[in-house]
C-alpha cells in the first residue's frame, strides 16, 4: 500500500509497509498513482497524452520516469506487500504478564474544576481520595515483581492533581530510588500537573527526579480560563503561568511538555500555540478534546475543518521558526524517520491493560487512566495481581490487524491502531475506531512527514 499527497509544495509518496518516503515530480506522482491499476502501455500512453503540451516533459522523460518507479519497486521501496499480520500478536505474546509502566493515581481530587475533564474533576466518577504511601509503595513493588527482564520502568504521577499529595510523591520516589539499583531497574518518573501548587520545593524535586513533566496550559488567557477554573470560578492562568515559566527555566533542558486541550471554543488553536511561544515555552503539545456527543466542548464538523487548516499552518510556522534558528517542538509532529519503533511495536497496538496499567488510590488496577471507574474493566489489584483475565485478554488481543478499518488505512504503522479508550467511548468496543480522532491523526502525520522531508532536504 502506498499513500500519496501534496503538501507544502511537495508531491509526497509513502510506501506504508517499508516506511520508504519519496518526494517526486508531477509525472512520477501520476505514474505511481496508476502503477498498480493500469498496464504499462496504458500508463505511458496516458502520460504522454497528458503532458503533450509540455516542452519540459518529453516522451522519453515519461519512459525514464516509469523505469525509475519500476526500479524502486524492485528495490523494495515501492508497492511492498504488507506481510506483517502473522507477527501482530508476537510482542504481546512474548511479553505476556510483563508490566513495565504504571500510572499512579496519586490523588483523586483536584484544586481546579474544569468542566471538560475526562476524570470528572479528578474524582473519576467516584469519591475523592488520595493514595497512601503504603499503597504507592506496594504499587512500586508490584511493578518490579512483574517487570520481568525490562530494565526501564515508567511511573506517571497522575490525578486529579498529584501535587495535592506531594509528600507521598516524594516518599515514593525516595523508596523507588532505594530499591532500583539492587533490582536492576531504572525508574523514569513523570509528573502531570495543573501547576497551581508549584513552588521552589516542587521545582527542585521535579527537575532532579522527573524524566518529564507535563504542564497543563490551554494557551490564550481567555481560552485557558474558560475551562480551567477553581471552585470559585476564577481562572487559573495568572497563577500558573509564572510558576510554569520558573519551573521550565530551572529545568535546564530536561524534558517537559506544555500540554493544552482545544475544544469547540478554540479550533483556531494555533493562536494558543503562539501564546505559549510568546511566554517562552518551546516543547508544546495540544490535543483535541474527547467529549461525549452533545457536550458543548465537542468539536463540530465545521471545527474539524478549521483544525485541519490549523495543522497545516502550524507546520508552516514550525518550518519558518526552524529556518530562523528559533525552533520549537510540537509533540505530535515528532517523527524519527531513520529511527523510531520497530515493526513489532508498530503493529502490536496500545500497551494498555497489558504492559501498562493505572492504579487507583486504593490499589485497584485498570487498563489505563481512561478506564478507571469503569467496573467492567477493573483488572484486579496490586495485592492479588490481575484477576479479571477475560478483560485483560481482550486488551492483549488488540492489535492493528484486529480492526478492519486499520487494515486499509495508510497511517496504521504510525498510530498502532489508536487509543483503546477513545475507541471504546466512541463505539462501545476497544477494537472499534474513533473516526474523528483518526481523521485528525492522519492529518498530523501528513504534516509531520512533510516537515521531516523539508528539514531533510534543507529547504
Amino acid at each position: 500500500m502506498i499513500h500519496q499527497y501534496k503538501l507544502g509544495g511537495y508531491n509526497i509518496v509513502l510506501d506504508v509497509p517499508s516506511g520508504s518516503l519519496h518526494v517526486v515530480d508531477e509525472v512520477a506522482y501520476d505514474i505511481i498513482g496508476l502503477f498498480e491499476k493500469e498496464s504499462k502501455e496504458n500508463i505511458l500512453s496516458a502520460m504522454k497524452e497528458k503532458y503533450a503540451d509540455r516542452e519540459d516533459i518529453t516522451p522519453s522523460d515519461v519512459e525514464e520516469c516509469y523505469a525509475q518507479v519500476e526500479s524502486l519497486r524492485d528495490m523494495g521501496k515501492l508497492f511492498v506487500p504488507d506481510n506483517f499480520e502473522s507477527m501482530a500478536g508476537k510482542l504481546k505474546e512474548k511479553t505476556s504478564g510483563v508490566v513495565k509502566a504504571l500510572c499512579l493515581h496519586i490523588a483523586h481530587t483536584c484544586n481546579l474544576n474544569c468542566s471538560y475533564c475526562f476524570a470528572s474533576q479528578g474524582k473519576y466518577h467516584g469519591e475523592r481520595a488520595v493514595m497512601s504511601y503504603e499503597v504507592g509503595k506496594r504499587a512500586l513493588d508490584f511493578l518490579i515483581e512483574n517487570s520481568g527482564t525490562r530494565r526501564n520502568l515508567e511511573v506517571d504521577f497522575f490525578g486529579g492533581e498529584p501535587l495535592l499529595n506531594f509528600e507521598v510523591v516524594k516518599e515514593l520516589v525516595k523508596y523507588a530510588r532505594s530499591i532500583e539499583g539492587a533490582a536492576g531497574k531504572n525508574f523514569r518518573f513523570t509528573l502531570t500537573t495543573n501547576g497551581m501548587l508549584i513552588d521552589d520545593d516542587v521545582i527542585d524535586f521535579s527537575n532532579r527526579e522527573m524524566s518529564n513533566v507535563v504542564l497543563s496550559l490551554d494557551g490564550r488567557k481567555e481560552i485557558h480560563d474558560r475551562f480551567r477554573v477553581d471552585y470559585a470560578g476564577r481562572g487559573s492562568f495568572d497563577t500558573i503561568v509564572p510558576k510554569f515559566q520558573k519551573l521550565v527555566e530551572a529545568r535546564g533542558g530536561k524534558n517537559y511538555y506544555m500540554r493544552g486541550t482545544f475544544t469547540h471554543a478554540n479550533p483556531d488553536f494555533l493562536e494558543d500555540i503562539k501564546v505559549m511561544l510568546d511566554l517562552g515555552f518551546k516543547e508544546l503539545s495540544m490535543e483535541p478534546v474527547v467529549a461525549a456527543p452533545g457536550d458543548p466542548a465537542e468539536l463540530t464538523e465545521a471545527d474539524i475543518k478549521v483544525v485541519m487548516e490549523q495543522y497545516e499552518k502550524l507546520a508552516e510556522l514550525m518550518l519558518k521558526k526552524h529556518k530562523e534558528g528559533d525552533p520549537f517542538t510540537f509533540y505530535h509532529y515528532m517523527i524519527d524517520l531513520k529511527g523510531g519503533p520497530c515493526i513489532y511495536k508498530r503493529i502490536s497496538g496500545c500497551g494498555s491493560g497489558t504492559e501498562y496499567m493505572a492504579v487507583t488510590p486504593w490499589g485497584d488496577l485498570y487498563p489505563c487512566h481512561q478506564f478507571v471507574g469503569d467496573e467492567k474493566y477493573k483488572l484486579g489489584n496490586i495485592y492479588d495481581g490481575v484477576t479479571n483475565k477475560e478483560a485483560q485478554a481482550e486488551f492483549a488481543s488488540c492489535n492493528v490487524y484486529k480492526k478492519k478499518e486499520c487494515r486499509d488505512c495508510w497511517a496504521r504503522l504510525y498510530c498502532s491502531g489508536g487509543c483503546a479508550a477513545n475507541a471504546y467511548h466512541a463505539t462501545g468496543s476497544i477494537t472499534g475506531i474513533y473516526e474523528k480522532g483518526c481523521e485528525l491523526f492522519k492529518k498530523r502525520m501528513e504534516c509531520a512527514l512533510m516537515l521531516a522531508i523539508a528539514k531533510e532536504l534543507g529547504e
Partner: protein
Amino acid sequence: MTHIKTIETKNLCDSAKNGGCGECQTSCQSACKTSCGIANQQCESKKADK
C-alpha cells in the same frame, strides 16, 4: 533526469529481523494522555547503541 528523491528512512521490513525487545516506552505515558501514537517514539535499543 531524476524524477524521484528518496528520503532515508528506517526499513520497517528489516526491523522485523532484530526488533521486538520491548524496552521502548509505552504508548501513552508521556505528554500524550488522550491520543495514543507511536510515530514520535524512539527505539530504545538504538538509543542504547549510541
